[in-house]
């Protein structure tokens, strides 16, 4: 380890012998850190991705607060930095966001477009290293260990170059966090947003974390934070004062995890195969629905959507879940574990239908969702000895999938689906039918 602080010019990526002034490009935008040449785990996160894409495509809104989200009843999917100054945050209900920022330009999400650009960005990342672990459409971990000789650049230089190229080619800014493990890399990418590049090294990470509250660490939610606080643990420094065994005894597995992360110990590898846990689809209604038949029609649409996604990814799930949100924002999930993993919309629907029947007892709901989890490779479509037509319905679904692949998604639909669509087309703001999924 050398004690000499290495610096790079953020404009032309060349090493800077005498920061802050770049002799090569005359820039005055240095990136320096004593450990920068030893760090190779990065987190790259697009800044307000959906909103940035919309601004890129429509320069007239470039200097206005922009919120991307669905309908009046939907939630904020992304808010540009200008909107954030008014207090708008992603996942905030739209009506709250508009209260905070009445002048905001609201744009319905164009998932296709974002997915396409996200895909391009991911491919650019993959030119740096095969070890790219996507966390979502617009962020990923990269492990650049051992790529220095290959690229003739240090990991930090490679990342600066990536950042520059994404801005040039895609037209959006990204923020980079560079460190020696995933936890710190993710933490770092948040420090210098937007268009930032932050570095956390072994020497400064511990100090940096010291006075942060416990919920700074991911996975520590309000409930866990409360029970920690009861035990007198408020900051990360408090966690460090405890023995690991003590944390383990009191808080179990998550206590031990917290103890390790508080010392910035994170041994998780950058895993390029994303560990997808579930496949699901959900929708927020424009007006609350209580009618069981109407709910079932909507459920069918969601089951088709879930099944389409599962089929596209060639996975099946053994646990089938129904999600409902009541008028009073109470979330209800009901799940069934089946004997074999399933993929067919028909099977998912027939598993969830009785669960929905039980919940739709006159209550009104604002959100409905369907999903599968405990995923594995599909086993094949199973019939049901006690439901003699199930096997044939499965064959019919596969056949109509083929027709839909050839002639478009609407080539073959169930009558139930038409009814659900007609009902929802009375509500022009619904985002349900017009959001085609990317089948990558």
């Amino acid at each position, binding site marked *: 380890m050398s004690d000499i602080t290495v610096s790079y010019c953020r404009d032309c990526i060349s090493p800077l012998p005498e920061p802050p002034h770049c002799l090569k490009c005359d820039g005055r935008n240095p990136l320096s850190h004593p450990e920068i040449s030893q760090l190779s785990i990065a987190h790259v996160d697009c800044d307000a991705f959906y909103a940035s894409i919309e601004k890129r495509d429509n320069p007239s809104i470039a200097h206005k607060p922009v919120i991307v989200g669905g309908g009046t009843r939907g939630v904020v999917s992304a808010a540009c930095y200008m909107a954030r100054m008014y207090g708008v945050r992603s996942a905030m209900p739209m009506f709250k966001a508009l209260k905070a920022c009445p002048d905001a330009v609201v744009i319905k999400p164009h998932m296709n477009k974002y997915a396409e650009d996200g895909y391009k960005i991911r491919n650019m990342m993959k030119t740096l290293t095969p070890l790219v672990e996507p966390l979502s459409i617009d962020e990923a971990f990269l492990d650049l260990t051992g790529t220095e000789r290959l690229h003739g650049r240090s990991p930090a230089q490679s990342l600066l170059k990536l950042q520059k190229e994404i801005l040039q080619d895609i037209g959006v800014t990204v923020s980079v966090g560079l460190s020696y493990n995933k936890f710190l890399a993710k933490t770092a990418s948040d420090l210098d947003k937007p268009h930032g590049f932050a570095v956390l090294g072994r020497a400064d990470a511990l100090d940096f974390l010291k006075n942060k509250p416990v919920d700074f660490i991911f996975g520590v939610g309000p409930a866990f934070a409360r029970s920690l606080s009861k035990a007198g643990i408020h900051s990360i420094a408090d966690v460090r004062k405890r023995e690991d065994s003590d944390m383990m005894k009191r808080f179990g597995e998550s206590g031990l995890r917290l103890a390790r992360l508080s010392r910035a110990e994170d041994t998780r590898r950058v895993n390029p195969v994303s560990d997808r846990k579930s496949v699901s689809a959900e929708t927020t209604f424009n007006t609350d629905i209580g009618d069981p038949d109407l709910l079932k029609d909507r459920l069918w649409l969601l089951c088709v959507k879930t099944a389409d996604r599962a089929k596209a990814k060639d996975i099946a799930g053994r646990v089938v879940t129904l999600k409902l949100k009541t008028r009073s924002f109470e979330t209800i999930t009901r799940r*069934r574990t089946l*004997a*074999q993993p399933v993929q067919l919309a028909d099977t998912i629907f027939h598993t969830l239908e009785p669960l929905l029947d039980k919940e739709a007892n006159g209550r009104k709901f604002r959100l409905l969702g369907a999903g599968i989890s405990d995923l*594995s*490779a599909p*086993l094949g479509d*199973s019939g049901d*000895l006690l439901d003699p037509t199930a096997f044939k319905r499965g064959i019919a679904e596969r056949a109509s999938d083929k027709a839909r692949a050839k002639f478009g998604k609407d080539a073959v639909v169930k009558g139930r689906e038409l009814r659900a669509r007609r009902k929802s087309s009375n509500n022009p703001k619904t985002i349900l039918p017009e959001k085609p999924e990317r089948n990558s």
Partner: protein
Amino acid sequence: MKIAIERADLLKALGHVQSVVERRNTIPILSNVLMSAQDGKLHFVATDLDIEISESTSASVDAPGDITAPAHTLYDIARKLPDGAQVSLKINNEERLDVDAGRAHFTLPLLPSGDFPKMTADGFTHEFDMSAADLRRLIDKTKFAISTEETRYYLNGIYVHAHDGVLRAVATDGHRLALSETALPNGAAGLPGVIIPRKTVAEVRRLIDSSDGDVTISVSDAKIRFTLGDAVLTSKLIDGTFPDYERVIPRNNDRELVIDNKVFADAVDRVATISAEKSRSIKLSLSQDSLSLVVNNPESGNAHEDLMVDYGDEPIEIGFNAKYLLDVAGQIEGRDATFMLDGPASPALVRDSEDKDSLFVLMPLRV
């Protein structure tokens, strides 16, 4: 209460009742076993509110009385005491239970025996005796097919009923069905169909595991009782209608495949190795007297194995869940298993060359 009892007697009696006690209980007294000492007998009762098991054993009773003590703890103590130990149980001045054996001493907390829930059981309309061996057989042949899925709760048990001079047990989860029958015991004629819950099936099976005597079975609308010597197990029945399973059993499958069961099971197990998934599908390709077992997994690779079989019908390809094939193969006693097939989308009927009283139905997979 103050009694002395042989460790072996205590262990056997507790062993019979403790397994019904759930490891986690929201109602504390359900973690306890009720012990009543009277007239040279110690009587044990444990329950989970759905099943109640009781057992009696002889003990020297110095002072009669009723107590409830933690069932699993007491059982574990009995288990760890040396063979031949004399155990003394008595309530001490602090209303706790002193357990003494040799130089080992334990003190256990007690809960009031008056709070212990008793299961009411009367109005039994049918009662008959059958050999423990026959009951074991009915259970063993069918219990693997019991469903665990909660929506169709009426499949979460074994359906037992009198049928044309036989006592028949059926279980299905919609993917496979198992049926086994035995000569109708005296007194069982007209027995209405009852669905015995999965946990009850497991408890009864444990109770009769090594017994060669007779079991008395009593049935009412809502409950069933098994009596074996001093042990009595009473359970609620599943309140539901078992589907018309007869319709599910294929009658017209005319393509007959006869296989050496052991050779077949070993080969299925071998080719299924290829897939790391929990559940694996396997394709059976039949033509003439050759059977190919094929597993294709895009990620973990492919495997196939060819077997000589007795077939000779039209070529057919049919997929199954490998685990379900192995479950059924595990029930076959004879050398040969006979598969009656129809087509790749129709259920297969499997019979045992040795056991004419059992049959199995398997739903294929469309791979």
